[in-house]
């Protein structure tokens, strides 16, 4: 066999194995989750000791907390990203700042959770709640938005920026009217991944949002999410159908995260198609 073929076979083999592992996990979830599936699980409250519990509050908490966390962290993170790419002086300390931001992303989420716990719950007396959990997610998301946003913005060709400045645009006008619109498809794509990452977060939420749900949604109501519920039911669930409830929760979580990622991709692709990029990027 030729050398190139052998490496092709090796890399293809590794890919197949990796995909098989992911598929296996999904199949396990589907097997248990779909076994006693009923759509009413989406609208019912969870049951602690009896079977047939639902995940309605967890679903609402997940969607609302992730959405609110993005609302807090995306604008602030993008402001940092714009400053890093278009305003920061070409100095050494700016390079270090970027490295620190990248480093922040590798801080374990549980540490972020504990810091938020100490500040909000211990310090300000907030309950374990939707609010505390949302703030924890926002803090967790902030450096990621800043770093990814800066990467996306710096991929907008510099000659576009110069073209705008040469027309008499100020820097801030160039950011608002050219850079952000030009980067929009890539930013939307990243928003999908960011949404998925936050929806799957557990460690930062156990200490901040808690492992309970309230009778109604509220900023200071307990804020258990789907991912936390999955973890809780798998490890400590006392309901007879715990295996099924956990798997169903996992399936719903996988579905909404995949939906977010795919939806973002489609949205971004639509914008690109409208702009004619990829159709014929000539000259």
């Amino acid at each position: 066999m030729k050398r190139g073929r052998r490496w092709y076979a090796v890399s293809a083999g590794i890919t197949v194995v990796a995909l098989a592992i992911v598929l296996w996990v999904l199949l396990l979830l589907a097997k248990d989750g779909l076994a006693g599936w009923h759509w009413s699980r989406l609208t019912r409250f969870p049951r602690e000791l009896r079977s047939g519990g639902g995940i309605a509050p967890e679903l609402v908490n997940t969607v609302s907390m992730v959405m609110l966390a993005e609302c807090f962290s995306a604008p602030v993170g993008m402001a940092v990203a714009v400053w890093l790419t278009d305003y920061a002086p070409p100095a050494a300390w700016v390079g270090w700042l970027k490295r620190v931001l990248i480093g922040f992303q590798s801080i374990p989420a549980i540490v972020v959770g504990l810091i938020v716990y100490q500040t909000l719950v211990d310090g300000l007396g907030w309950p374990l709640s939707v609010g505390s959990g949302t703030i924890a997610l926002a803090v967790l998301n902030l450096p990621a938005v800043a770093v990814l946003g800066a990467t996306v913005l710096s991929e907008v060709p510099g000659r576009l920026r110069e073209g705008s400045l040469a027309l008499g645009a100020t820097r801030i006008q160039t950011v608002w009217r050219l850079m952000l619109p030009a980067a929009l498809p890539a930013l939307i794509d990243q928003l999908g991944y960011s949404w998925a990452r936050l929806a799957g977060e557990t460690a930062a939420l156990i200490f901040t949002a808690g492992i309970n749900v309230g009778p109604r949604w509220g900023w200071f109501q307990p804020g258990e999410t789907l991912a936390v519920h999955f973890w809780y039911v798998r490890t400590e669930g006392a309901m007879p159908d715990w295996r099924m409830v956990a798997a169903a929760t996992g399936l719903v979580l996988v579905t909404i995260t995949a939906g977010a990622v795919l939806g973002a991709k489609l949205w971004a692709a639509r914008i690109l198609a409208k702009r004619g990029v990829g159709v014929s990027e000539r000259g």
Partner: protein
Amino acid sequence: MAAITMERVSVWYGRVKALNDVSLEVEPGSVLALIGPSGCGKSTLLRVLNRLVERTPAARVAGRVLIDGHDILAPDVDLALLRRRVGMIFQRPVSFPFSIFDNVAYGPRLHGMKNPHQLRRVVEGSLKQAALWDEVRGKLRRPAHGLSGGQQQRLALARALAVNPEAILMDEPTSSLDPGSAARIEELVVHLKGQYTVLIVTHNLQQAARVSDFTGFLDRGQLIELGETSQIFTAPRDRRTEAYLTGQFE
């Protein structure tokens, strides 16, 4: 139309001197071609005139540059206003990732034009001036990226014209285009003569001879010679100019 005067202008990039004591005058409404070997400072000279040169880290400019008698290097100069008066098109055509209409309307919108009828008039007028109107009428909502390279360069020209500049800087505007598209840009330059002061940097000597009233030859940051184009090409005064024009250079 703007009269441009440079008095003893020098530019440094860090310790490298890119432009050395250049003095020149450009008559309003005329076309000045700048020729010279790569790295001689032609583009730097253009970028001094709209002060894009300052975007290069560690760039420093000395001397005086007057446009219609105003010192544009003064610290209190409104850069946005200066760049509105001195338009620029680049070597590779720059199309923003928007529709053809929004590309041309970008400048007028920046400067506060909101009325759709007014915008439409400006866009149509600018596209006609750039000789692109007949090819894109009825397709103004289509993406600019769908145009050919030559069309995109004319679109860039239309976008520059839409803010009503007095001078236009062209940095090798045809070097990335095929001969046919290049010829159309040349026609446009000749056409714009008299209405705008044009400075065009080019590596194509025939092009300089065809489109310009005056030609300046730069070498290693120095303006060696500047004169009427016919004189430069037929009877250069400096030995180095002659050597460059006859291909005996480097």
